């Protein structure tokens, strides 16, 4: 069971992600679907159909793919590095800081001026958070300090976000902020894709390169150090990688919970509990799950769209509980 052929797993994940991506392109609030996609591919589609598929659905599907990948990968890296099954990409404070940065642009009215003001604000927030975390966690390889610094940054940024909501002098602003915080991919454009893609790609590279170190860390910190890994450097790479990718993801879509927590757990047993193989698997799994959740958002909604962050949490929480109970049974 455990020694399942890994190419098999990867091809399953790859194909299901591809199918979910296609699904995300053909599902929407209007009639435009699979048949229309074929007309676009053959070049016979009318202008409206082309615009809907290529300018509304395609960027949305691409963002779902990239954000899901980011969350799955981020969760797997942090769970491996901290050797803590409860770690998730938001743990080190990047998600809250990016949210704060984005919310500030809504509050100050900057977000009303041009489309990218909000995601740029979010990314700025995430980058500032990294500086703060590095400062708080110090030149120290202790994972405990990293977690504590993350908790401190998270609660501080959340408190400031609440303060902004509290100070919003106009109920329309408060409402806009609240809706944004729930996380959504609705009506994002290619501008959002181009802005966030470089950050996410750079982040992925940094994170994927840590596979070997994470494998060594399963033997313990000292063993990893004796194998020649500098834990300080590794921690810095991971923090920066998470900040770039998860920060950019949050900046364009808001906070989307549970993907980064659940997906590594789901897939760990299929990669023989090897952190380095889990990274890519978890990234693909995250992409697949996010795309499916974003399809569910559109199918379940009649009229006003549900928020993606709400749906992932609704699906994720009971599923996670089930997983915990199952693991417990297996241990007994």
């Amino acid at each position, binding site marked *: 069971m455990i020694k399942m052929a890994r190419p098999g797993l990867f091809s399953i994940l790859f194909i299901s992600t591809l199918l979910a991506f296609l699904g995300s392109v053909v599902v*929407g*609030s*209007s*009639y*435009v679907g699979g048949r229309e996609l074929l007309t676009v591919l053959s070049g016979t589609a009318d202008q*409206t159909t082309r*615009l*809907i598929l290529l*300018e*509304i*659905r395609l960027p949305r599907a691409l963002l779902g793919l990239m954000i899901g990948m980011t969350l799955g990968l981020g969760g797997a890296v942090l769970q491996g590095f901290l050797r803590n099954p409860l770690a998730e990409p938001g743990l080190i404070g990047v998600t809250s800081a990016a949210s704060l940065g984005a919310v500030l642009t809504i509050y100050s*009215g900057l*977000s*009303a*001026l*041009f*489309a990218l003001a*909000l995601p740029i604000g979010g990314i700025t927030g995430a980058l500032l958070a990294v500086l703060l975390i590095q400062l708080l966690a110090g030149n120290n390889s202790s994972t405990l300090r990293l977690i504590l610094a993350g908790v401190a940054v998270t609660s501080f940024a959340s408190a400031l976000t609440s303060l902004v909501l509290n100070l*919003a*002098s*106009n*109920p*329309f*602003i408060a*409402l*806009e902020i609240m809706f944004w915080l729930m996380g959504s991919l*609705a*009506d*994002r*454009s290619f*501008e*959002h894709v181009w802005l966030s893609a470089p950050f996410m790609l750079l982040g992925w590279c940094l994170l994927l390169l840590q596979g070997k170190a994470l494998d060594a860390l399963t033997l313990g910190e000292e063993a990893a150090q004796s194998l020649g890994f500098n834990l300080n450097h590794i921690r810095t790479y991971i923090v920066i990688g998470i900040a770039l990718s998860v920060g950019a993801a949050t900046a364009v879509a808001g906070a989307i919970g549970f993907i980064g927590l659940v997906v590594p757990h789901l897939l760990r047993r299929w990669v023989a509990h090897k952190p380095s193989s889990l990274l890519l698997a978890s990234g693909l799994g995250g992409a697949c799950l996010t795309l499916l959740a974003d399809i569910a958002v559109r199918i379940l909604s009649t*009229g*006003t*769209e549900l928020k993606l962050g709400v749906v992932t949490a609704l699906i994720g929480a009971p599923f996670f509980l089930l997983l915990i109970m199952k693991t417990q049974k297996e241990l007994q």
Partner: protein
Amino acid sequence: MPAFFQWLDGVLCAAKKVVVQCSPSYLVLIGVLLSCTAQAKPQKVVSINLCTDQLLLLLADKPVIQSLSYLASRDDISALAHEAVGIRKNHGLAEEIMLMQPDLILAGTFTSRPTVFLLKRLDFNIIEVPVARSFADIRHNIAMIAKALHEEQRGEQLIQAFDTRLALALATQVPQPPVAVFYRENSYTTGGNTLAHTILEAAGFRNLAAEMGISGSGHLPLEALITQHPDIIISGRKRSPHGSVATAAFQHPAFQAFKTQTTMVTISDPLWICGTPLVLDAVENLLKVRLQLAATQQTTGQPTP
């Protein structure tokens, strides 16, 4: 600053259109110039914001209105809910709006930002109408939408009727304006620099919250309410028949006791939400309250403390 960006956006957009449309030949260029001076009147207009819904209903012929926001026919928030019946509703999603192929889209500056930016990117003719905080804003918004609809004359008429009616309301002033305060669910109050404040002042009241230094909306502690002793308390219409946590302050014994010593007024919410000429209904309703208040004070001979 925002005005500058809008201007810049406008200039760039116009430049782009001219370049795109004029490249084939001089004939086309002349055609474009002609069509620019006498652009066609929008025939398919879509609104995705509750307030632009109402202004659109006031300014355009019904056949031109292709769709309104789904809130437009809710009579607890829209003052023109009845007029909106029978018109197709939208939920402010780019996809459904695109399929309607509108030649003009009306949006608010705070609604569905990603959707608005996406529609702009796809070269839809979209105007963003700011939130009205004063009567001047209302006039500005009417003129803005009327211009986009090519209904300038109708806009002028609407503004003129508005001004005449407003002048009439402002003419009935009594020397000592009573003090009023908004006190709603969650001890939510409305201070200066808001539409509600403008309405209140026009009806000849002083706004306690604004005098306490609250700008925009804010919270009024129960204690402050009781110690400041306003002449009237204005609350919204009851929403939930079974009460809610938000209305807990209304059940508070201190508030119940205080209520008997002051005048409670409930207002019709739809008239207060959006900056349309219908706010004058709210002004006139409040004027009646003020005249009643003055009458009772005269009969009891008790000036307000």
